[in-house]
Structures are given as structure tokens and as C-alpha cells.
């Protein structure tokens, strides 16, 4: 397993040499990377991007170091994970800022991919990003009081600081939490906010941004522009998701995604939970590929736990097999519904879903649930394959799926209507794809052969032979084709992993030691990232040695890939919005978290 926090030492020392006063190695035990002077952040990031090749800003997030003890050193830390788009480990920068009146320079002008992530940090932590072009709330709404991820903020249904709650056991007093804090009494509003008079349609900040974008757009003929809201309740948005679009005729002038309708503050829940409890919650992020979600979280925690949580060989193989089956099932869904969006109404998606069903049968037999698999544990997997499932996987991977993926390919890939509808639509150049921190199929369809399984291998992926799939046009058609390519690539990996599975059909050890209901995680930070079906899925966790994570952050690929949506759409027709959105392949459970 490669530790993502060990970057190439040459650049690290170079960074310290170039900025001797502004860069300090993070000396806290269990931590890595550099603590950087706030005032020098932009300068250092520019040097990183332009001179050292760290052109991919994968993750931006904040951590609240807070204790209500007197004289405690309280501050907010903003954490940046930089990577090279040519592969390798991370370079982690950290900036510290006081909790009251936190200000950090924005990196959005340098790395446009930081846009939504900084907005999220502003929204949830109240960190102000100086120089951010469009700093407003992103997941919460304007009528929300406070910054919910701060440690001293308490939710309406607050019971105790951390689980398990005392009144479940030993006290045993059953009640419904909503009876204690009934509807309409569970809300707080910011000062001066009028909840009755507020209408979503006159959200002033959103429309101001759209107007500003429109002023930059110049046309010869002076026409009146209109604002159209696509969604939130619209089948083409794949969930509860809204796009505010400013149109000049049929041409898109500006587009701003509005999200957070499904926001449940997954990360806050994660910090109240114990380490083990978070595993089933990760299933609910991207509910179409729960095994990959488990994978990333297990990796992040195992990194902190060290060798005592190293999974046995068979478990590693099972993890890879399950993750690749998940990728196939996710891409079947994505391709099916992209074709749906393109106008091939439901027949192709149902053909695709049929195969997905057979994969889900395997998940159900192994894990007990079709979608909410909850299969990974720290140091292995929950249980071995039941009788007959190994043969089932073999049948599917060696016989049925190759045939069916070919059929899906023949079915519509060469269809002239599909091609003329999708070729040249929503083009993203490789430079843009990297700058906007897109990940997964969106990045690779733009000609950037970046796949974490190869660029920064985890688990046992370095043992398999596979080509990193890449397409070069960066349009909707290539984003469709790359998913078909990747399904074949996953089959290639599966065909190597299944015969090599130690123990084969007979079974074997799948847990390192016992599977305790409470785990001890040494203090420190770790970032575990996997190549999920939708892109880089990362978990940034901070442990303070207690039973619950001090910080639990999800780098959600669907969410960050949406940053590029406006770029894809501006200048095109309004009808292309749906197709472009479909080609990103989002799941709102993960976007909103």
C-alpha cells in the first residue's frame, strides 16, 4: 500500500528551501505535509502549479480544532491536497486561521476546481476565502443560522456529543426524537431573516452572480436575456438538483448549479459516530456504488491503524473483485441513463439495468443487501463468499458480461443519431479538466490518462495488468465511450483477480484477527483515496485517539465534477444542459452529502 502522504522528497525539501520562512513541516505526531503562512499561500500554490508540476488540486477542506477547555488553542485549519496529473503521491499544505473572523486567500483563481470546495468550507465552517469570485452558501440555504460543521454548533435533534448515547443503554428510555423537538420548533434563523417572506426564486445572491456572468458575455444584438430554473424536481436532473440558467435566446450565457436539497450533513453525523458506525453511512453517499465508498473509508482508517489492520490476502482480492463489479454496475447505470438523456428512451437503460441486477444479486448473496452493502471492515471484509457465489461471479464475468457489454456497445455506440447528438457537445480540454479538478471518466475522456489505480496504487492493484483507458475529444460522446471502455477494463482486472483468489471457492481467512465492535485508531490524519466509478473518492480523516473521528471529510467526485458543468454548457444550447449533466454522472446522495 502506498502512503499518499509521502510525496517525492525532492520537491518537499525544495519547497522548504524556497520558502524558508513561510513553510514549516507539520510536526504533530501522525501528521504530514506543511503548515504554510496564510499570506504566502497563493505564492506557494503558484510555484507548486507552475514550477513543480502539482497541477491537480484534489481536495480542499477545513478542520475545526476546538475544545471548550479554558486556554485551549482553538483554530481552523484549511487542508489542501495537491497531486501531479502525471501520478504520484500527495503534497499536503495546511493553513491555520483563527476561529473568529477566519480569512484565507482563495485558490479558485489559480485552481478553478477549488470553487465549490471553498464554498463548502465557507458554508460549513465559516472560513472566508478572500478573492473567491462567488462566495455564497452551497449546501445550506440562505436562511440557515450558523456554520454546522463547527464543533460548537449543535443540530436540532442533538442528543449527545458522540455516540453511543447513554439513554439507549444502559438507561433504556425509549422515545422519538421528533416528539421532543417537534416540527416548526426545530428551526433557527439568522438575525433579521424573514422565513415567511423568503421565496427561493428571489434568492438575491444567486441571481446577482448570473447577472454578473451575463455582463461579461457580449452579443452584437442587444436582446433580453431570461433566467430559467431547470429542476429541482425534474427527471433529467437525476435527483433533486437545480440549475439556474441565464439564456440569450436558446444559448446559455451562465449556469449555476444549486444543490443541497438532499443535504443531511453526512460529515457531522460521521463525527458523532464511532469509527465502525461510519461504514454503513458511506454506503449512502453514492448509493449506486456502495462498495467503492466502503473501500475508500476502510483504506483511510487502515492507514492510521497500521499493520494490525492489514487485510489478509483473500480479503484484498475480494475487495478488488467487489470494487470492480461495482464499477461495472455503476457504469451500466450511467451509460443507460446517459442514453436516456440523449433521447434513446428507456430501452437501452433497461437492457443495462438487467445486467446490473445480476451483479446486485451477487452483492445481495454476499453482503445481505443489494445496494447498501456495508461489506468492508477495518482489516478485511465482513464475511466470506457464501456457497455458490464464487461460481456465480465466474459465470457472470467470464461468460455473460463480456457478451452483454459488447451488445450494449453495438446497440447504440455507432448509432448516427446518438453520435450527431453527442459529438462535439460539452467539450472540456485536458487543461481545463485538470484545472477544474475533475476526476474519473470525465478527466480521462478529456485525454488525461489519470487513474489512481495506476497513478497512486492502493490495495493490490499494482498486481494486475490493465490499460488506463483514455479518450481524447472530451465531449459527451467520449464520456459515454470511456465508460464502455472502463467496463471492459474492469472485466480484464476481474479475469485476473478471480482465478488468483486465494482459497478460491473453498473460502479462507477474510479478517485480520477478530472483528471488534470498537476500534482504536491512533491519533493523526490520513487521506485514503480510491478510483471510484465516478472519480477520485477520498476520505480525509483526523483522529484524536478517541472512539470517534475528530474530522471526517468526504472528497465526493460527483460534487467536484459539477464544478466544470458551467464551463461545459456556456455557449451551447439549453437542450445540451441535460446531456452534459448526464455525461458527468452524478448521484445526489454524494453531491449533497
Amino acid at each position, binding site marked *: 500500500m502506498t502512503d499518499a502522504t509521502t510525496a517525492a522528497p525532492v520537491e518537499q525539501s525544495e519547497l522548504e528551501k524556497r520558502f524558508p520562512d513561510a513553510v514549516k513541516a507539520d510536526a504533530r505526531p501522525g501528521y504530514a505535509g506543511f503548515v504554510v503562512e496564510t499570506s504566502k499561500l497563493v505564492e506557494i500554490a503558484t510555484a507548486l502549479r507552475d514550477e513543480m508540476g502539482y497541477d491537480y488540486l484534489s481536495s480542499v477542506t477545513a478542520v475545526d480544532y476546538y475544545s471548550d477547555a479554558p486556554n485551549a488553542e482553538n483554530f481552523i485549519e484549511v487542508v489542501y491536497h495537491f497531486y501531479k496529473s502525471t501520478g504520484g503521491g500527495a503534497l499536503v499544505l495546511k493553513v491555520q486561521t483563527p476561529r473568529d473572523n477566519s480569512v484565507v486567500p482563495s485558490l479558485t483563481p489559480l485552481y478553478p476546481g477549488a470553487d465549490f470546495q471553498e464554498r463548502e468550507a465557507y458554508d460549513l465552517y465559516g472560513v472566508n476565502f478572500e478573492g473567491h469570485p462567488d462566495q455564497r452558501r452551497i449546501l445550506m440555504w440562505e436562511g440557515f443560522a450558523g456554520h454546522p460543521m463547527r464543533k460548537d454548533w449543535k443540530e436540532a435533534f442533538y*442528543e449527545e456529543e458522540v*455516540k*453511543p*448515547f447513554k*439513554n*439507549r*443503554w*444502559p438507561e*433504556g*428510555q*425509549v422515545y*422519538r426524537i421528533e416528539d421532543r423537538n417537534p416540527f416548526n420548533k426545530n428551526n433557527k434563523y439568522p438575525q433579521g431573516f424573514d422565513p415567511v417572506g423568503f421565496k427561493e426564486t428571489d434568492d438575491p445572491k444567486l441571481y446577482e452572480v448570473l447577472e454578473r456572468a451575463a455582463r461579461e458575455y457580449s452579443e452584437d444584438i442587444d436582446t433580453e436575456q431570461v433566467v430559467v430554473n431547470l429542476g429541482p424536481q425534474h427527471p433529467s436532473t437525476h435527483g433533486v438538483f437545480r440549475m439556474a440558467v441565464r439564456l440569450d435566446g436558446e444559448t446559455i450565457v451562465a449556469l449555476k448549479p444549486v444543490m443541497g436539497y438532499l443535504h443531511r450533513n453526512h460529515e457531522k453525523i460521521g463525527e458523532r*459516530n*464511532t469509527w*465502525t*458506525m*461510519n*461504514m*454503513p*453511512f458511506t454506503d449512502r453517499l453514492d448509493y449506486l456504488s456502495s462498495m467503492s465508498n466502503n473501500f475508500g473509508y476502510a483504506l483511510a482508517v487502515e492507514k492510521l491503524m497500521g499493520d494490525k489492520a492489514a487485510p489478509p490476502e483473500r480479503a484484498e482480492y475480494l475487495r478488488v473483485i467487489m470494487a470492480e463489479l461495482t464499477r461495472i454496475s455503476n457504469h451500466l447505470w450511467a451509460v443507460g441513463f446517459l442514453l436516456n438523456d440523449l433521447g434513446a428512451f428507456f*430501452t437501452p437503460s433497461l*437492457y443495462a439495468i*438487467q445486467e446490473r*441486477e*445480476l451483479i446486485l*444479486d451477487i452483492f*445481495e*448473496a*454476499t*453482503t*445481505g*443487501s443489494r445496494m*447498501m452493502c*456495508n461489506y468492508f471492515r477495518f482489516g478485511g471484509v*465482513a*464475511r466470506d463468499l*457464501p*456457497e455458490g457465489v464464487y461460481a*456465480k461471479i465466474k*459465470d*457472470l464475468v467470464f*461468460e*455473460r458480461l463480456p457478451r452483454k457489454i459488447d*451488445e450494449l456497445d*453495438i*446497440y*447504440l*455506440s*455507432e*448509432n*448516427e*443519431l*446518438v*453520435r450527431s447528438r453527442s459529438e462535439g457537445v460539452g467539450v472540456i480540454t485536458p487543461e481545463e479538466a485538470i484545472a477544474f479538478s475533475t476526476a474519473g471518466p470525465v478527466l480521462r475522456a478529456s485525454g488525461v490518462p489519470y487513474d489512481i489505480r495506476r497513478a497512486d496504487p492502493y490495495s493490490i492493484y499494482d498486481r494486475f495488468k490493465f490499460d488506463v483507458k483514455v479518450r481524447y475529444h472530451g465531449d459527451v460522446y467520449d464520456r459515454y465511450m470511456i465508460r464502455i471502455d472502463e467496463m471492459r477494463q474492469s472485466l480484464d482486472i476481474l479475469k485476473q483477480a478471480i482465478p488468483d483468489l486465494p482459497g478460491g471457492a473453498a473460502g479462507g481467512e477474510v479478517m485480520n484477527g477478530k*472483528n471488534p*465492535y*470498537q476500534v482504536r485508531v491512533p491519533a493523526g490524519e490520513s487521506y485514503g483515496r480510491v478510483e471510484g466509478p465516478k472519480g477520485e473518492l477520498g476520505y480525509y480523516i483526523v483522529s484524536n485517539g478517541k472512539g470517534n473521528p475528530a474530522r471526517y471529510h468526504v472528497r465526493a467526485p460527483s460534487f467536484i465534477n459539477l464544478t466544470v458543468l458551467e464551463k461545459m454548457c456556456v455557449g451551447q444550447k439549453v437542450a445540451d444542459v441535460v446531456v452534459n449533466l448526464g455525461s458527468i454522472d452524478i448521484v445526489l446522495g454524494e453531491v449533497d452529502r
Partner: protein
Amino acid sequence: MYGLGILKGMWVTLTHFIDSYVEDIKWLGRNRYYSKEGIQHRRSKDTKGIFTVQYPEEKLPVPEEFRFIPFLVYDVDADGNKQDRCTSCGICAKVCPPQCIWIVRTEDPVTKRPVPEPVDFFVDVDICMNCGYCAEYCPFDAIKMDHDYEMASFDRHAEHIFNKEKLSKPASYYAGIRPTNYNREETLKAEEAAKKAAAAAAKAAAAAAAPPAGSPPPAAPTAG
């Protein structure tokens, strides 16, 4: 040729269309629909044609590991009395991610020590996320995940907090829905009991044969 791609695609649809009739003809005289065999075939790798299952007339069989809402297992002793396996140790309540388990314990009025059997046991099934942790981590095999997924009711406020009575099911039911797991656990238990009995017997024998305290321990047997 322009339009070839469309024709190829339509050929795929046509084969699917024809397959559904060919399959029906192949199954003439046997039941492709509304039969166990037919459903099994439709979920196999060779399935062709009509794939859907007409719920609720037809139901997919659930695999053994399927999990939906926990239940409490009780044994029935020789006199026909229910013996709860649960000792109200609270591990299920402590590991439950959405915290939907409440256990009411009690203590002996005379000795003031906790009574192992729970007075009551609640699961709010609206909150339960069917993760299966309670069953996985229970050291006494007392809580298991059910297979019964049809539990709609008219009033969630009145009916969706299950109490101990509603949750309790006999071990025979558990053995019926999860035979492999049940047998594995029973063998393990039998082995452990045998080991314990052997250890106890050895201890008793040693105590009987033990020389008075203070003398050196007996030499290890040379053979065996």
C-alpha cells in the same frame, strides 16, 4: 453507409423481442412464470427474454445473508419455557449506527446485581438502517437479521417501535431462514461446550488427585 449504426441497434432490439417468444416456446409445458424453477432460470446467467418478476404474485427468493430489521432469538427449554438468549449486555445498542436500539435492564431487588435478561427491548424500525451490525457483533447470537421485508402498516407512530414481544422469535425460525449460519454457530457452541466440559473434568480430576498445597506440581506425563 449512413444509417447502418441505427440498423445494427435495431437488430439488437429485434433479437431481444424475438428471444422473449422463443424462450416462452422453449418453456412450453413447464412453468416459466409463477414457479420457483422459472424464477431461478430468469435470474441465471443464461436468462433471455422476459426478465422481470411480477411482484407480489411472484417473489424473488432472498439469499441466506439477506438482512432486514433485527429480531431477538429465544430458545425453548425442555419444559416449553422461553429462554431469551439476550443478556442485555448492550453491545448491539452501542454499535448501532443510527442508535435505534433501546434496552431496558433491571436489577435483582435483593442482590442489586443486574439481571441478564432484558425487561424490554425496543427497535425503532423507522430509524433502523438494516446494516446488520447488531447481529454481527452480538456475542450470544441473540439478535439476528430477519428475512421478512413486507411490513407496511397504517400507522407508523403506533406500530413502528417494536418491543421485545414483537421482536422475539424462536431459534427454530432462525434455523429455518439461515440454516448455514445456524449450523455453524451450533457446531461452534457444541465444540466450546465440549472443551469447557473437558477442561472442567480435567480440573476436577486434578483437584481430586492434587497433593496437598505447597508440594511441587506433578511432573508432566511422558507420553502423549
